[in-house]
């Protein structure tokens, strides 16, 4: 393959990488929000404490999408 084709394929790969990465992170944050809602509706007085843990968990699962983002950015440079 010549350089142009490789570059096009790399751009396509970048799109695929960030897309599939975002699926997982979206699912993770969705589950985290579900857990927060469950906890708060059962025990409204723990809302503040639960929200801190929710932010922590959401940040941890969001990081997975950002790993994909780093890979996508590396592919864009090809």
């Amino acid at each position: 393959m010549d350089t142009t084709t490789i570059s096009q394929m790399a751009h396509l790969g970048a799109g695929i990488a960030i897309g599939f990465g975002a699926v997982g992170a979206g699912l993770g944050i969705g589950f985290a929000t579900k857990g927060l809602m469950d906890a708060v509706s059962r025990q409204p007085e723990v809302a503040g404490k639960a929200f801190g843990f929710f932010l922590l968990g959401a940040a941890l699962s969001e990081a997975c999408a950002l790993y994909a983002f780093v890979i996508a950015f590396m592919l864009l440079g090809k």
Partner: protein
Amino acid sequence: MEHWVYTFYINGHAVSVNLDTIFTMWFAMGVVIAFAILATRNLSLIPNKIQALGESIMKFFYGTLDTMIEGKNREHVPLVASLFLFILTANLMGQLPLRIIHLKQGEIASPTNDINLTAAMAVIVLLYYVFMGIKAKGAKFFIHDFSFTGIVMALVEVLEMFTRPLSLAIRLFANIFAGEILVSIALGSMAYFLPLPIMLFEILVAFIQATVFMMLTIAYIGSAVKEEH
């Protein structure tokens, strides 16, 4: 997004340093050191404003350490507190309008958008918790008992010594890097005040990422020094 790379040679070996990262890192460190000096100067029983702020920050670290590490945990405060304060200052620096200062190459942004800095901090955390684990448990830190499960667990823990710093470094770096790209895209494509919510979100991300780095550090130290039953 590119860095101001300066290359020099030691015995013919090329050594590259990112000058903009070094400059912003020393700036962030200077801010933290200045705050620490100001907060601990003229200590009194009835604290003035900045001392009260410093005391509430220390109370936050003590509370977090108490919930995650049992027993003697005050000895970990220096590392944990300086990591948190440095990362927080560094992340928030990216939201300052420092980019209007033009360098020869690169730009002045937060130092944590350089993976070398975050990797260095992750390696420091790795060395610290391995040292603390060896100090607390001796050789038992590496291998708990000579059985099949024990050896497999020891191998998994050796693997974790590589994956933990890797994930720590890439998580912080990617969050800040993606945030800066997001803000620059928003500034380029949206009119007037529309990028403002994204920039506010980036400030939230700065706090969360500093907290996540600190929490994971505490969790790793806690799992290293925990007594086995």
